[in-house]
């Protein structure tokens, strides 16, 4: 029996190709979703199993073929990993698997362990299935996966695996497993997560072999060509719907220990209508810095590609410019980077511990904001920056259960406004873009000897605008038993996230310490303004986290008074701020929402006054 198509009467010729395009792209996404489900449900660490800080993808050659809905920060790098595999292991065999976390050779950063499974069709290495997941611990010098002050990779201290073989003939290469078990602080958690990633890779392997067996590999290959060509055409149309020309983007990173002046960052983006391409240049950026903020090749290029994909995918003007992510659409991007650059290719041993954050996020946000400034309706304001304590890596010793280390995700950082709508509340910054899951307070308190005292919306922290940013979050927690070490970092305090087109910046992030007090008693608070925060807490003490909101889009005086009233009633915005910032006069008692009402005449007067004051 000849291989037939889908479920129904297969058409032929052109119609067959059209059907194959729809059918196979659907099937590949299904395989990636199956990988994700496997990894999520079997992982041991909360950063993977609860927060979902992972992504799965299928690569063919060096080109990303399918990634379903992977984390925006992980997307672009898969091709670089596959290339690394082919360079170091030119003749892989079925049953192999490789561990890769080398920031100098295609990985995002050392904390993301990538597991690569080569997939063979008719004896040829046609696909590579990749599961990438942020680990609970990687054996850094300190119990955290983020080391912003590390002077180099030696100071970080993590084991680096430059694409080493971890399975042969479907069996672990035990040497590598033993190294990890010896160095990683929570070896059982790591090994469980490794098995989860492996299961994801093996499932993809099985499904891809089935797919090619069912339809014949020639037909699948022909689909791959058509699919890349299709997404390339689609990306070109989206690019041609952007304003042509060159946009220069500048932004500035806050000072850090070891980087006292902060860091000026630049990008040039050229939209070329004729060629249907985007050319970006990151080479005019500083050399690698002696702290942990250097980007990797994957994250530097990703910052530009992901920012532009967000600009293309977030249109509110009816242009359907949604672009699938794969090697086809990536053909339309050229990102020039140079060696030994903070936003380029790092030179060993520069530290890239925070390569998924900070520098890349700054550029990413600045690009989406620059396109908003260039053209009404496009782009977005800047999202909040930094990793305040709600997102800290905590560690300690549970008197009952032994040592623990984990990254928490107890709050949110506010999302940026677009021309169409207010910011997404549980956004958490560009690299995650709303995809990550928030921890359950009860699950955290059950697994770790800790208490979460509060986690709630932070009023008046939104970047005001015609469309406002989402507000940030206030969160407090601390150990219930034993000491707890907490590591976090703040960013965007001196250089807050920008609003666009008259929209305002949000309130910035901050951190504080609360002395041990009885539940409900007034707290004694000490601010911790350092960019790189660390605390050792005793039982009863707490760390406090105030996260930034997102920037606003458009003039806050143009925001519809009914929306401002809603914001006041729901406790997002105070009565005072409604009048002072939005020019909306609301009467009544905010503790009794049924009394709140817009004073339309006063609102008109205030808004007219503000407008004329601005004019003069």
């Amino acid at each position, binding site marked *: 029996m000849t291989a037939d*198509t*889908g*479920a*129904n*009467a*297969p*058409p*032929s*010729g*052109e*119609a067959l190709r*059209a*059907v194959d*395009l*729809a059918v196979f792209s*659907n099937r590949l996404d299904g395989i990636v*979703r*199956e990988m994700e*489900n*496997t990894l999520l449900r079997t*992982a041991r660490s*909360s950063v993977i199993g609860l927060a*979902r800080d992972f992504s799965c993808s299928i690569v063919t050659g060096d080109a990303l073929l399918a990634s379903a*809905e992977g984390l925006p920060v992980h997307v672009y790098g898969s091709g670089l990993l596959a290339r690394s595999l082919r360079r170091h292991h030119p003749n892989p065999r079925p049953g192999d698997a490789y561990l890769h976390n080398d920031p100098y050779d295609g990985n995002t950063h050392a904390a993301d362990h990538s597991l690569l499974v080569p997939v063979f069709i008719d004896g040829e290495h046609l696909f590579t299935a990749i599961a990438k997941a942020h680990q609970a611990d990687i054996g850094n010098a300190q119990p955290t996966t983020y080391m912003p002050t590390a002077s180099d990779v030696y100071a970080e201290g993590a084991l680096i695996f430059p694409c080493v073989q971890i399975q042969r003939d479907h069996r672990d290469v035990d040497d590598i497993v033993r190294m990890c078990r010896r160095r990683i602080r929570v070896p059982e958690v790591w090994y469980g997560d490794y*098995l989860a990633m492996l*299961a994801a890779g*093996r499932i993809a392997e099985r499904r891809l072999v089935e797919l090619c067996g069912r339809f014949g590999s020639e037909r699948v290959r022909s689909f791959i060509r058509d699919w890349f060509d299709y997404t390339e*055409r*689609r990306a070109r149309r989206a690019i041609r719907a952007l304003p042509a020309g060159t946009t220069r983007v500048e932004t500035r990173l806050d000072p850090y220990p070891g980087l006292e002046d902060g860091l000026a960052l630049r990008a040039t983006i050229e939209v070329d209508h004729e060629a249907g391409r985007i050319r970006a240049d990151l080479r005019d950026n500083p050399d690698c810095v002696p702290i942990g903020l250097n980007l990797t090749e994957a994250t530097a290029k990703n910052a530009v590609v*992901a920012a532009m994909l*967000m600009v*293309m*995918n*977030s*249109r509110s003007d009816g242009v*359907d410019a*949604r672009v699938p992510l794969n090697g086809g659409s990536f053909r339309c991007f050229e990102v020039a980077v140079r060696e030994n650059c903070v936003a380029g290719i790092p030179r060993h041993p520069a530290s890239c511990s925070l390569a998924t954050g900070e520098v890349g996020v700054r550029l990413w946000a600045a690009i*989406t904001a620059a396109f908003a400034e260039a053209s009404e309706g496009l782009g977005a304001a800047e999202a909040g920056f930094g990793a305040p304590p709600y997102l800290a890596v905590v560690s300690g010793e549970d008197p009952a259960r032994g040592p623990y280390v984990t990254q928490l995700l107890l709050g*949110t950082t506010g*999302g*940026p406004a677009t021309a*169409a*709508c207010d*910011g*997404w509340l*549980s956004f958490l910054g560009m690299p995650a*873009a709303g995809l*990550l899951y*928030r921890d*359950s*307070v*009860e*699950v955290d308190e059950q697994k770790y000897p800790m*208490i979460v005292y509060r*986690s*709630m*919306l932070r009023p008046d922290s939104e970047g005001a605008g015609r469309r406002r940013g989402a507000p940030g979050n206030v969160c407090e927690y601390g150990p219930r038993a034993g000491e707890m070490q907490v590591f976090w970092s703040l960013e965007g305090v001196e250089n807050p996230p920008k609003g666009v087109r008259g929209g305002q910046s949000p309130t910035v992030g901050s951190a504080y310490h609360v002395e041990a007090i009885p539940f*409900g008693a007034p707290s004694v608070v000490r601010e911790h303004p350092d960019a790189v925060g660390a605390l050792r807490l005793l039982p009863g003490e707490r760390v406090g986290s105030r996260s930034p909101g997102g920037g606003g889009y458009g003039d806050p005086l143009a925001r519809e008074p009914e929306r401002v009233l809603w914001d006041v009633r*729901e406790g*997002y915005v105070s009565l005072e701020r409604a009048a002072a910032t939005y020019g909306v006069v609301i009467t009544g008692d905010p503790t009794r929402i049924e009394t709140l009402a817009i004073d339309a005449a006063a609102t008109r007067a205030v808004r007219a006054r503000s407008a004329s004051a601005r004019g003069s």
Partner: protein
Amino acid sequence: MPFSISIDTGGTFTDLVLSDEIRIRGLHKAPTTPAEPFEGIRAALEEAARAEGRAVESLLAETATIVYATTHATNAILEGRTARTAFLTTEGHRDILLYREGGKQEPFNLARPYPDPLVPRSLCFELPERVLADGTIARPLDEAATCAVLERLRALEIEAVGVCLLWSIANPEHERRVGALLDASLPSVPYTLSHRVNPKLREYRRASSTVLDASLKPLMRTHLRTIDARLRALGFRGEPLMVTHLSGGVLGLGEMCEAPIHCVDSGPALAPVAGLVYASAEAAFEATAPAAPAASDERRATLPASKLDVLVVDAGGTSVDISPTRDGRVVSSREKWLGPRWIGHMTGLPAVETRSIGAGGGSIASVDAEGLLTVGPRSAGAVPGPACYARGGEHATVTDAALLLGRLDPDYFLAGRMPLSIEQARAAVTRRVAEPLGVDVEEAAAAILAVFGEHLRSFLSEMTIVQGLDPRECLIVAGGGAAGLDVVSVARELGVPRVVIPSFAAGMSAVGGQYADLFTSTARSLQTTSTRPDRAAIEAALEAIDGAAEQFFSQVAADGTRRRELLCEARYANQLWELDVALPADWRGRDEADWRELALRFDRLHSALFSVAEPGAPLELLGLRGEARVTRPHPTLAAHRAETGSHSPPPSPAAPRPASHRGVRFAGEARARASVPVYRGRALPVGARIVGPAIIEEETTTIVLDPGAVAEAAPAHYSIRFSEDTVPGGPR
């Protein structure tokens, strides 16, 4: 002769199945009037009475039980028509419902509005109190502050209250106290306490169940009591109305009024109940099969029906619901979303695992600027509907494509009640799909069906994957008006060896209502491990579960088998998500053998779902759940055909006579249409064997048999298998 009636009030139709003590007598349908739900019920009752040749009053007077399934609760939630509800929670955690658990569609699209919470933030209130994970009270409930909050609720004219305090599952003292204060100060306002409605770890899910339950109380109490009263006004004198439960069982009216969240989405939950009954009927039919099969049958060596896992598919005009089963039981899930994942609301309760895909006869096909053909999820709906309805629909839909390929009879759609326009279908498919793709109209129609079939296939496939089922060991029971169009070929593509299509395909849930057990479930949370079990806590949980089951059994008046099941929520130590493992009903967790049994069952389930297991690894136990059910005496499935229940006398292969022939395009290289026999389902005797390519037209569904598919007429369904060597072309 006492009758039993089951009613499924859907958005478009109200389905009613009438049975007597022996068998199902008929399926009757009437249009639903959304504003006046009883109208559809009355109309369906009149249809049934007419078919029985008596008056509605006399029919109801002889009816012992009525089972009622409704979308009323679901629609009220999705349309925001529930009570004005307040949410009370622990100080510092007001935003549990607002933040949810995170997650977002379209990661690169920043221009998506954040979804509204179930309760506006302004109606979420904090109570000064705190219980810790081990049940310790770290901060006593501040009663004065609580009373001040309750006063605010009065001023705000709150109609219902949901109370979910952190760790009430470890120590419910504070929640109970808040309940007592509510009784005292707002005696007429219904409320729900989280540890009662869903004692389960994870505050968002528990809070969501709690608030949904409270918000439904005023509305559903009125609704259910009104339906009961109106049935009684028409002459019904049987036991209290039985209302369907999201676990696929039924509860008495009184109990359902106490926890109306249990009737959310309960209609679709009945489809797998019916599906399992049809699967048993298939196994029985198979057992009566003549010993000597025809030559071509020898190759179709598959497992007997009784050994196959059952997948239940209910395909309507705008969506397809799929429910898996395992070991002859419906599968339950905790991740039931009302509305889209992440932006809808989670019920948080164990519910029949039913997932929907927005694909049906009305799904719209279009081609984008770069040449990608998409089918759905947009739908032409019932109005204006597919282009061939000739009601002004301009989009090309799946129904239009099926019509153009000859799969539907333009003059026998809905038994001839709605003539279809081939011209309109051709015009729409030409303009929307054929021209943009540069192919002829029939190629375009075939492409539409192929892509549509792919959606169904991938959805079914993902469902089997998530459940760890092998399609080659599955039997599909396909109901719904659109089932016969595609499911047979999709099943074959997946490698599913057998498909059962009920004669009453268009009323699966109402049929399921005849077979739903009276059901109750009691859950207790735990925090213990297999290595150091907290025996006292386990004993206390089992005692509570036993007590609830005994009380339930003593309250149920109905005859029937009484049965209990015990489930354990467990995970490997340090894992983050738990699984529900079925345990022997007498499991007590006392000796080594009990723990070995638990470990064995857990490993097996983990391995089935994720293809890996870690035998010997310690387990964490998060809860125990007891289910108690009373299986009522069942009718047999309808005697739809002339003969009943057996293959004898064996029909001669020539016996079935087609009503007509028409040109239909099928899979394979043939671009040309084959002339294919069309059979009227009613006329086929039991045992009749139809070899594809062929079409069987039932009144509410059309079954398309591809070349190689063979259908046998069973008393109340069609049994369809595939034989690889059947020559396309079929009899002349």
